[in-house]
C-alpha cells in the first residue's frame, strides 16, 4: 500500500479517535453501521504497555514518566485490506472493532463508516472537551485592582 500524505493524516486521525474512545463505543457504532466482515488475525489482540515520556522543564531532555496500558491487534479482511489498532486500556473487543474499522476505511465502505462511526466519535469527543473547557473557563479569575500601593 502506497499511502499519500493526505491518506496518512486521515488514517492518523481515525486511529487516534478510536484509541481514545470510551469502552465499547467503537464496536457499538460499527455494529450499527454494517455487518462485520470476515477476517483473519495477523496478530491477535494483546494487552501490553507503552512507556510514556515527558521532557525535563517541558521542553528539554526526555525522561520516562511511567507506563500506560495499551491493547493492539492486526487483521486482514477476506478482501485483503489490513487493519491495525493500538488503543488505550485493556479491551480486546474494542481493539478488534478499531482494527476492523481501520481496514474497512480502506474499502468502498469508507464513506458510510466515516459518517456512522468516526464523525460520531469526533462529535462525542468535541462535546466532552467543550464542557470541560467551559467549566475551567468559569473558574478563571477576573482580577480588579482595589488599591495600588505606592511604596
Amino acid at each position: 500500500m502506497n499511502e499519500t500524505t493526505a491518506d496518512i493524516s486521515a488514517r492518523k486521525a481515525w486511529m487516534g479517535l478510536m484509541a481514545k474512545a470510551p469502552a465499547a463505543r467503537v464496536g457499538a457504532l460499527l455494529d450499527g453501521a454494517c455487518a462485520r466482515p470476515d477476517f483473519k488475525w495477523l496478530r491477535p489482540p494483546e494487552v501490553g504497555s507503552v512507556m510514556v515520556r515527558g521532557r525535563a522543564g517541558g521542553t528539554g531532555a526526555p525522561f520516562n514518566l511511567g507506563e500506560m496500558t495499551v491493547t493492539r491487534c492486526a487483521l486482514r479482511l477476506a478482501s485483503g485490506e489490513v487493519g491495525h489498532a493500538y488503543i488505550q486500556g485493556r479491551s480486546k473487543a474494542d481493539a478488534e472493532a478499531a482494527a476492523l474499522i481501520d481496514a474497512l476505511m480502506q474499502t468502498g465502505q469508507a464513506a458510510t463508516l466515516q459518517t456512522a462511526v468516526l464523525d460520531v466519535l469526533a462529535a462525542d469527543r468535541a462535546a466532552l472537551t467543550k464542557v470541560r473547557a467551559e467549566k475551567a473557563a468559569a473558574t478563571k479569575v477576573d482580577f480588579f485592582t482595589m488599591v495600588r500601593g505606592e511604596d
Partner: protein
Amino acid sequence: MYVAVKGGERAIENAHAWLAEERRGDPSVPELTIAQIREQLSLSVNRVMAEGSLYDPDLAALAIKQARGDLIEAVFLIRAYRTTLPRFGASAPVATADMACDRRVSATFKDVPGGQVLGPTFDYTHRLLDFKLAAEGETPPAPQREADPAPVPHVTGFLNQEGLIEEAPHDDTPPPDLTREPLKMPADRSLRLQALSRADEGFTLGLAYSTQRGYGRNHAFVGELRIGTVPVEMEIPELGFAIEIGEVTLTECETVNQFTGSKTEPPQFTRGYGLVFGQTERKAISMALVDRALRWEELGEDDTGAPAQDAEFVLYHADNIQATGFLEHIKLPHYVDFQSELELVRKLRRDVQSTQTKEAAE
C-alpha cells in the same frame, strides 16, 4: 543451628479467607464497585497510578478495592501487574504546552496569557467537614463559561524572552529507564525525574518541605502549575508513522528559583520540574522542589549536606515498594537467623560471666 520447619498452609489459607471477609466488611452495606472508586475516589486512583507507574484508572480502582484502601498495598499490586505486560514501545515525549487545562495557576505572574484558572481545587475551601455529604443528594452541575480554544502557553516562556531564566534546551537523547536497568549512581536528571515521578508522595513532600525550612534552601516559587489532559503519540513501525494511542491526565509544576549565580552560571532564575500522572499537585510541586535541590552540582552550587541534595539518599529511599518490601519482610519468619543471634548472645554472656568470676577470684 538450623531448624527446618514446614507448616502454616492451613493458617495462611484461613487468614486469606478472613482477609477477604474483612475487606468486604458488613455485608448489609452495599459493595463498592470499581466505577464508584474510579469516579468518587479519583485522587486515590491518581496516586496509585502515579506511584504504581501505570496509567489505567480501572486497574488502580481495582487495586484500591483489593487492598482495602491501603494505597501502598494498591501500588504494590499495580507494580506487580505491570511486570506481566509486554512493552510495545515508548511514546514520543508528551507536549504539555498543548495540554487541555482543567487548572492552571501561576504564583509569580498575575496577568499571564490564558489567565489564572483555578479548576476543581481544594485551595479555597474552608476545610470544614461537610455533613451534607453524609446524606445522599444530587450535586448541582458546575457553572460553564465560554472558553478560548487556543492552547495555554507555558509561563516560563515569558521569562525566557528576557533571558532571565535558564533554558531547557531541546534534546532527543533516549532516556535511561530504571524499570529496565537497576538505578545506579551518579544518576542523570532524566533518571532522577523518572524516580521522583513514581516516588512516594509522603517522602517527596517531606524532602521538599525540608528544602523550604532551610535544608538545601532554593527559594522556590510556583512559576506554573497545570493539570489537564495530553494526547500520547507513538511511532508504529508497521505503519511507518506515529498515531495517538490514548490520552493521560497529568499534573505539571514548574518552579522558578532565585539564583544569585555561580562560578559557571550568571545570576538568573533556575527551574525545578515536576510531572506526575493524574491530578496530583502536592506530589508534582514536591517533585519540582526536590528536582531543583538535586541539581546543585550541575548549577555549580555548594553542597550544604542537606538530605534533599543527596541524590543517593533521595533516590534509594523514595520508592515506597522497595521500602515497604524491605521493611515489612522483617516481620516474616527469621527463626534460623534469630536462633544464631540467640546462641551468640548466650555465648557472649557466658564469656563475660566467666571473666568476672575469674577477676573476683583473683
